[in-house]
C-alpha cells in the first residue's frame, strides 16, 4: 500500500479543526465527525472548506494532502505537506530523461497511445478502431509535445463523438468544453478528470519523483504538476468515460444532479455526493495482479504506475503505460 489511511471526500461545506490527534470535521447540520489523523491519507474538498493553521500543520506533519476542487470540478489547487520523500538521485535522473527529446517524446507517445487504447477499451466498440489505427500510424512521426498532443486531441474528439452515441441526449458532450463545462456530460468528465489528477498527485507524493517534471505536457501548462497530468492520461478513460457510460446506462444520475445554466453546468450538492460515492467504490474495486500475486485496487494501480516511473529513473527499466488486463 502506498500509505496508511484513507481518502476522505468532503462533499458538503464544512469546517476543519484540530482536536488532539484528530481532525474534527464540522458540518452545518449534524454533530462533528472526528477522524484520527493517522487514518487520513488525503482529503478532497468538493465544496467550501474553512480550515485553520493548526489543522493545516497537523495535516502537513502527517503527510496529508488537501485537494480543492472548484465549483466546476476543476482541480483548483492543493495544500501539501512540507516534507516529501523526494530523492535527489531519482530527481536527477527524472530531469535527465525528460530533458532528452527522444526519450521524452517516446514516453509521451506511449502515454497518448495507451490513453487512446484504454478509451477504446472503456467504450468497448469497434467504431474507434479506424481512429486508433490512424493514431498508431501518425504518432511515430510526432517529434514534439505539440504534435503528440494534436494527435491525442484528434483521437479524443472522435472518441467523444462515439461516446455520445452511447449516452442519453441530456448527458451528451457535444464536443468537449471546460472552464466552465457547458453541459452535464462535460461537467461529469471535468469532475472525474480532476479526481483522477488528485489521485495521481497523491500517489506521486508517496514516491521520490518530482510531480512537476513531466514527459508529455509542456512545462508551460497552466498546472505545474505536469507529471501528474501525464500519469493521469492512461487512467482517465478507466474512470471518466467509463463511469459516464455506466451511470447513463444504469440511470444513476438525473438531470437534477446538475446545476445547468445557459452555457455552464456543474454538479449539485447531491450530484457531488453521488459522484464521490461512485468514485470511491470504483477506486476500491480490485483486480488480480499477476506479478504481485494478489488483488490490487484501482487506487493501487495508480500507485504502481508511479512506481514504474521510479523504476525508469532508478534502473532505466522501460516504461510501459497502464493498460487494463482484465
Amino acid at each position, binding site marked *: *500500500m502506498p500509505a496508511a489511511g484513507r481518502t476522505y471526500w468532503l462533499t458538503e461545506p464544512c469546517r476543519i479543526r484540530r482536536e488532539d490527534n484528530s481532525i474534527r470535521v464540522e458540518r452545518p447540520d449534524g454533530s462533528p465527525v472526528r477522524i484520527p489523523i493517522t487514518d487520513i491519507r488525503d482529503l478532497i474538498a468538493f465544496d467550501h472548506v474553512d480550515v485553520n493553521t493548526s489543522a493545516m500543520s497537523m495535516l502537513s506533519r502527517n503527510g496529508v494532502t488537501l485537494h480543492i476542487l472548484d465549483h466546476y470540478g476543476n482541480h483548483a489547487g492543493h495544500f501539501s505537506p512540507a516534507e516529501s520523500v523526494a*530523492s535527489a*538521485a*531519482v530527481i536527477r535522473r527524472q530531469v535527465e530523461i525528460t530533458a532528452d527529446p527522444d526519450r521524452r517524446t517516446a514516453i509521451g507517445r506511449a502515454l497518448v497511445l495507451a490513453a487512446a487504447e484504454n478509451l477504446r477499451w472503456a467504450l468497448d466498440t469497434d467504431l474507434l478502431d479506424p481512429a486508433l489505427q490512424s493514431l498508431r500510424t501518425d504518432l511515430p512521426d510526432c517529434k514534439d509535445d505539440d504534435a503528440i498532443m494534436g494527435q491525442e486531441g484528434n483521437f479524443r474528439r472522435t472518441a467523444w463523438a462515439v461516446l455520445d452515441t452511447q449516452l442519453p441526449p441530456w448527458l451528451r458532450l457535444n464536443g468537449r468544453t471546460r472552464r466552465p463545462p457547458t453541459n452535464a456530460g462535460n461537467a461529469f468528465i471535468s469532475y472525474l478528470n480532476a479526481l483522477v489528477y488528485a489521485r495521481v498527485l497523491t500517489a506521486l507524493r*508517496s514516491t521520490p519523483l518530482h510531480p512537476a517534471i513531466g514527459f508529455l505536457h509542456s512545462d508551460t501548462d497552466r498546472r505545474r504538476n505536469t507529471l501528474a497530468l501525464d500519469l493521469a492520461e492512461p487512467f482517465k478513460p478507466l474512470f471518466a468515460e467509463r463511469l459516464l457510460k455506466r451511470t447513463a446506462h444504469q440511470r444513476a444520475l438525473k438531470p437534477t444532479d446538475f446545476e445547468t445554466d445557459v452555457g455552464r453546468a456543474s454538479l449539485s450538492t447531491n450530484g457531488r455526493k453521488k459522484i464521490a460515492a461512485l468514485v470511491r467504490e470504483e477506486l476500491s474495486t480490485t483486480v488480480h495482479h499477476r506479478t504481485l500475486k494478489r488483488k490490487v485496487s484501482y487506487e*493501487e494501480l495508480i500507485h504502481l504506475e508511479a*512506481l514504474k516511473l521510479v*523504476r525508469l529513473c*532508478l534502473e532505466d527499466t522501460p516504461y510501459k503505460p497502464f493498460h487494463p488486463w482484465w
Partner: protein
Amino acid sequence: MSSLDDFPADDGAAVGGVHIKYFVHCPRQLWLYARGYRPEHRSDRVAFGQVVADTTFTRRRDIDLGEAKIDWVTTGAVVHETKSSRAPSPAHAAQVRHYCLLLERRGISVRGGTVHYPLIRRTTDVPWDDDARMAAEDAETQARNVIAATEPPARLARTGCRGCSYLDYCWGD
C-alpha cells in the same frame, strides 16, 4: 526500528545499521535505499514498528551516532535493538554487530549486543569478539560496494521478498 529515522541522507560515506540490515536481507534493497527511495516511510509496518519501539522501553534514551541511531545502550556497553518482527533474522544480528563496530571506533569497549523481540517475548544475544568484528567489517565493505555499483542487484527469489517494503516496486509490473 526507531533507528530507521535520522540518517544523514545520501551521504556516501556513512553506512548505518539499517544499511547493514538491508544488505544482509537483500543487496537490492540496500541499493535502492541508498538512492534515497524509502517506501517504508509510508508503510503501515514501519508505523507499527515505531509504536512498538516507542512503547516498549520508554525509560532509556536512544543513542545517536550520526550514521546510526541505536535504540539504547546499557552500562557495560551492551547494544540493545528492538524489533517489532516476530522472527529473529541474521540481518538483525548483523545490524547490532555494526553498531558494536561503530561504538568501538569511538573508543568504547563493547561487550556485546542483544536483539529484543517484545512481540514474542524473546531476546537474542549477539556476541562481540574477533570473529564478530571481522564479520562486521566485511559486511561494511561489501555494503559499500553494493551502494557504489551502478547497476541494481537482481531481485531475490520471490519468497525472499515477503514483507519487504519494496515489494510493490520490485514486482509491480
